[in-house]
C-alpha cells in the first residue's frame, strides 16, 4: 500500500515540478536582465520626484481608472511623435510605482499633457468634458471639485514611496501635508517650502481656481500639468535605448 501511494506521489510531484520549471524559466530569463537596465539606459540627473500634491493627484488618476482609456506611452512611431510629442523614454517613468503606460486609447495619450492646456480648461473639462469637447465620451468628474483632499496620510504615502525606492528626503516626508497645501495656495507662507524642497521650476498655483480650499481637483490638475515634465530628457537629442551590438 505504501509503495503504491509513494509511486503516485512521486508522479504528481514530478508533474508539479515540471510545470514550475518550464513555466518559470522563460519569465526569469526575459525579465531578470531588465533589473540591470540602469546600466545602459539614458540617465536624467535633472529629474525630480512628484510633489505630495502631484502624487495625490496621481492616486486620484489611478482611483478613477483614467488609465483604462488614456495611455502614457508615446511609441517610437512617426505619427505618434507628431501627434503627441517626443516618444517616451524608460527613465521618465522610473519613479512611477506602478507605471501607467496603459493599453487602450479611448481618449488621447497623456504622456506629454503637462502645460498644454490652462488650469481653467482642465477644471472645466473635468466638470463636464462635453462643455469643452462636444464629441467627448469621457465621464464627468464634477465631484472632484466638491471633495476636499485628504492630506493627513500624505507623509505615510511618501514613506512608502521611499521604501520602494523613490528618493524622498526626511524633510519632504515631514512636510508632506503642508507642501500639498502650499502648492495650491501661492500666496500662503507654505508655498515657499514647496519650491525649496522640490525646486524652483515647481508650479505653485491655485489649480482649481480657489486658493482657499484644497480639493481633489487641485491635486488632479497639478498632476496633469506635470505629465512629461519631471525631466526634459526626452527633448534632448535622443540617446538610443539600446547599444548597438
Amino acid at each position, binding site marked *: 500500500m505504501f509503495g503504491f501511494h509513494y509511486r503516485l506521489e512521486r508522479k504528481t510531484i514530478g508533474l508539479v515540478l515540471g510545470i514550475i520549471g518550464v513555466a518559470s524559466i*522563460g*519569465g526569469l530569463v526575459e525579465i531578470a536582465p531588465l533589473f540591470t537596465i540602469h546600466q545602459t539606459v539614458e540617465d536624467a540627473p535633472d529629474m525630480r520626484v512628484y510633489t505630495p500634491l502631484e502624487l495625490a493627484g496621481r492616486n486620484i488618476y489611478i482611483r478613477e481608472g483614467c488609465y483604462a482609456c488614456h495611455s502614457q506611452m508615446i511609441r517610437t512611431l512617426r505619427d505618434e511623435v507628431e501627434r503627441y510629442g517626443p516618444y517616451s523614454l524608460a527613465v521618465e517613468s522610473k519613479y512611477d510605482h506602478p507605471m501607467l*503606460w496603459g493599453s487602450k486609447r479611448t481618449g*488621447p495619450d497623456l504622456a506629454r499633457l503637462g502645460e498644454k492646456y490652462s488650469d481653467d480648461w482642465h477644471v472645466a473639462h473635468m466638470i463636464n468634458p462635453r462643455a469643452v469637447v462636444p464629441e467627448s465620451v469621457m*465621464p464627468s468628474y464634477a465631484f472632484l471639485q466638491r471633495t476636499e483632499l485628504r492630506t493627513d496620510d500624505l507623509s505615510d504615502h511618501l514613506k*512608502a514611496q521611499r521604501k520602494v525606492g523613490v528618493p524622498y528626503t526626511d524633510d519632504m516626508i515631514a512636510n508632506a501635508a503642508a507642501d500639498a497645501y502650499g502648492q495650491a495656495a501661492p500666496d500662503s507662507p507654505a508655498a515657499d517650502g514647496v519650491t525649496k524642497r522640490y525646486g524652483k521650476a515647481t508650479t505653485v498655483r491655485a489649480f482649481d481656481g480657489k486658493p482657499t480650499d484644497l480639493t481633489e481637483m487641485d491635486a488632479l490638475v497639478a498632476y496633469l500639468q506635470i505629465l512629461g515634465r519631471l525631466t526634459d530628457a526626452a527633448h534632448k537629442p535622443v540617446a538610443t535605448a539600446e547599444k548597438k551590438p
Partner: protein
Amino acid sequence: MVAELTKNERQGALVILLALAVTGLAMAAGGRGDPFGIHGAMVLVAAIVGIFAVIGGYYAPEPSPERLDSYYDSPTKFGIVAAMVWAVAGMAVGDWVAWLLAYPEWTFDAAWASFGRLRPVHTSGVIFGFGGNALIATSFYVMQRTSRARLPDQLTPWFVLFGYNLFCVIAATGYLMGVTQSKEYAEPEWYADIWLVIVWVTYFVLYLRTLNRRKEPHIYVSNWYYLAFILVVAMLHIVNNLAVPISWGSAKSYSLFSGVQDAMTEWWYGHNAVAFFLTSGFLGMMYYYMPKRAGRPIYSYRMSIISFWGITFFYMWAGSHHLHYTALPQWVQSLGMTFSVMLLVPSWVSAGNALMTLNGAWHKVRDDAVLRFMMVAAVFYGLSTFEGSFMAIRPVNSLSHYTDWTVGHVHAGALGWVAMITFGAIYASVPWLWKRNGMYSAKLVEAHFWLSLAGTIIYVFAMWNSGIIQGLMWRTYNESGTLAYSFVDSLVAMHPYYIARAIGGAFFLLGAIIGLYNIWMTIRTASQDQAAQNVADRPVTEPAIGAPALQPGE
C-alpha cells in the same frame, strides 16, 4: 450544507470563521474613514453569517459513512450557480459600460458610476467571478471522476469556494469605492491579494490530495491543464502584486516595481493570466467535457500532452508583445514576438485536436446545442489564437495596439472561447449533477446558443471594424504631409460601432440570463422530484442499505 460536514469539520469551520471575524474586526477598527475599514466590516459580517449557519446546523446528525461511496458534488453545484450569477452580473456591467462609450451621459452623477470604476468590475466580474468559479467547480468535478477518488474531506472545498467568492466581492466592491492598484487584471489591493494567496494554496493542496488518492497511476490530461492553471496563476499573482502598503490601516499600497520593470512584470503577468487562467484551465475543461459529451475519446491523446508543454513553455516568453515600440528594450520585444508566433503551433494543435474529436459525431453536433457550444468554442479558440499571434507581429501591432482591435481580439477569446466552453460544460454537468435526464428546457439551451453566437459575431465584427478604422485614421497623412485626422475625428467615427457592440453584448447577456433561468428551473424540478421521492420513502427505516443518492443517473 453544514449537515454534510463531520463534527470535526464543523469545529474546524467555526475556528476558521472566528479567525476571519477577528481579522475583519481588526480591519474595521484600524481602517476607520478608509475603504479598508468598510471591507473589514464586510469580512466581519460574512464571518458572522457563517458562524450562525454553522451553529444552526451544529447538532444535526453527522453524515453517514456511506457518503464515501459517492463523489462529493455539493461544492461543484454551488460553484456552477455562482459562476452563472457572476456571469449575468459581470456581463450586465460590461454592457452598461459598452453603452457608456456610445452615450456617456447614461449614468449617475456619482463617483462609483463612472466608466473608469465600472470597467474593472466588468473585467474582474467575468474573468474571476464567472471564469474562476466555473474553473474551480468543474475542476472538483473532473478531478474526482478522472481519479476515481472522492474529495479528501468536506470542509476544504467549501473554504476554497467561499474564500474565493469573498475575494471576488472584495475586489468588485473595492473598485466601486476607488480601491485599485491600476495593474490590469491585478487590480485588487494588497489585503485582498494576501487573502487570495491563502485560498489558492489551499486549493492547490486540495488538488494534490485528491490526485494522490487516485486509482490509476496515470493522471488524466485534463488535470495537467488544471494543475498548470492553479500553479502558474499562484506564481504570477504573488510576483506581480508585490507591494508596500502605506499603513496597516489603509487600502493603498505602492508597487515594488516601477517604470519598465513594472511594465514587463505586469504584462508577463497579464499575458500569462490569459494563458493560464483563460486558456489552460478551460482547455482542461474541454478535454474532459467534449469527449464525454461526444462519446468519443480525444482524437490524439499524445498531441494533447505535447501541446500542454508547448503552451506552458511558449506563453511565458510572449508577454512583451504588449509593449511593442515602447520604452522596453527592443530585444525583449523581438523575443516576445518570436515566441508569440511560435505559440500558434501548440494552440492550433489543441484546437485541431478538439475538432477532430468531433469527427464522426457531427450528427450529434447538429442535434445537440450543448455539444455545439463546445464545437464553436474550439473554433473561436483557433481563431483568437491565430489573431493573437498575428497581432504580436510588430508592424501589425503598431496598427492594432491601443485600438478597439485589441478589444475585439479579447472578446473573440472571451465570448467565443471562454464563455462558450463554459456554457457547454455547465449544461453538460447540470443534469449529471442533479440527476436529471436533461435540462429543464432544451429549447432554451438552443436559444441561448444562437443568442451567444449572434452576440459574439456582432461584437467582434464591430470591434474589428472600429479598431482598424481607428488605427488607420491615427496614422493617415494628407498630401501636405501632416496628420489628416484629429483624435476627435476618430472618436466620432467609432460611435456607430460602439452602438453595434453594445447591442451584440445585449444579445450575449440575454443568453446568459436565459441560461441562468434554465439552470435554476432544472434544479427546482429536481428538488421537487426529490421531495416527492422522500415522502414516498418515509416508511422505510433510516439506514436503507446501499447508497440512497445513487439513482439511475445520467
